[in-house]
């Protein structure tokens, strides 16, 4: 059991160690009954992206690509 706030701002890296930026948001699929997490919204440009000024062009990383969630970071499959 996690909270959204605890995931935000964690570094997102691939298994080989490439940095994909920080997690700013989670993409979700909202239905009448549930809200499922479908992807990670990451960004490298920092504060401006967090405030949504520069919309990220890269699509969210699918949740299925997440390999593990560690103390300070999230590890995803190599792209």
């Amino acid at each position, binding site marked *: 059991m996690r909270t959204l*706030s605890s995931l935000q701002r964690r570094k997102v890296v691939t298994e080989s160690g490439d940095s994909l930026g920080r997690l700013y948001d989670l993409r979700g699929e909202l239905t009448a009954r549930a809200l499922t997490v479908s992807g990670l919204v990451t960004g490298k440009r920092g504060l401006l992206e*967090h*405030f*949504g*000024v520069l919309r990220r062009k890269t699509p969210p990383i699918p949740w299925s690509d997440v390999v593990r969630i560690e103390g300070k970071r999230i590890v995803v499959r190599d792209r």
Partner: protein
Amino acid sequence: MSKIFGVALGILAAIGGFVDIGDLVFNVSAGATFGYQLMWVLPIGVVGIIVYSEMCGRIAAVSKKAVFDAVRDRVGFSAGLGALIASEVVNLMTFAAELGGVAISLQLLCGLPYRWLIALAVVGLAVVIWVTSFEWIERIFGYGGLCLLVFAVAAVKLTPDWGKFGNGFIPHVAQNNSLLYAYFVVGLLGAAMTPYEVYFYSSGGVEEEWTPKDISLNRANAIIGYGLGGFLSVALMVTGATLFLGHGISPAHLGTIALGAQVPLGEIGLLLALIGILFAVGGASIDTVFSGAYNLAQFCGWEWGRYRTNVNAPRFTLTWIVLLALGMGIVMTGVDAVVLTEYAVIFSVVALPLTYIPILLVANDEAYMGRHRNGRLANVLGVVYLVVIMVVALSAIPLMILTNVGQN
């Protein structure tokens, strides 16, 4: 027909409500110190508050969110909390300054001791808020503030040098005393673009359940109301320039400001000026206290609003009562109302970007605004004023220190 009547009434209330103690102090002082040289700053300030209010009003109408709803939504909890703390401190300082102004005007009108009048003013304001509906509060203080038009009449009667007056509208840098000149530029802009004005305006919009259909009406209301209200600021500066410039009189007291109407128009001028000041500053007191309560309630997610009735928004009600008490405490310490006003205006200016930036972001956000998001004109103005606000916010405190709060 009755719609036009309603709009006209709204405009009148906006004019009367435009001036607060910051405008009284800074506009008259600017005239007394620099004559007409700072006139050009006033239209910039008026357009600035129109741009900011219009965005906030549109956001309220389309997304049903007032400023702090939108701020917290958009920039998140920690940035929102920072903005909240800054805004509450500034709101409280501003309220204390306005309350001091109310007490001083009462004292000039009836001569009772100052400290009694502070308590009387607070009790009076509390009763008015408790008992009166939102619309009637706006009307009473808005129409009462129209008495300030006496300054417009007085300004003309004082036969200003119209040539120099006209020249004042052309922007130029100071010939001498440039630090003090810059301080007044900052102060005049801060007095015109008071943040509590937009907190109150947008919360009022949500209270009155504006919809996208109300957007153009309220835009017109804001433009005409604030635009005409700006004339009162011009009149105040002219008063300062014709009466006080060169005579070494610095209007450090509200009574001196009221002289601006007495000299050309006699006792009736003085009376109207004092009544106008009382209502304008009294209305501003209520606006600031409400703004403080609105902001806290919106940030925390509490039920809020005068339309909910006192009993159905308990924490909101308690907040404005506590703010009244805190403001009274500050004024009771005997701090000079004019000095407090200067500090309040300068600090508002510093805090201005903290809410302006999120509002500019929300006004542009399609998810919040749909097809009502900022068009090109709104964005050009929005960004221009962002630059103005940032420059002013960053230079405010250094200028305040360097000019010793305008004393030089």
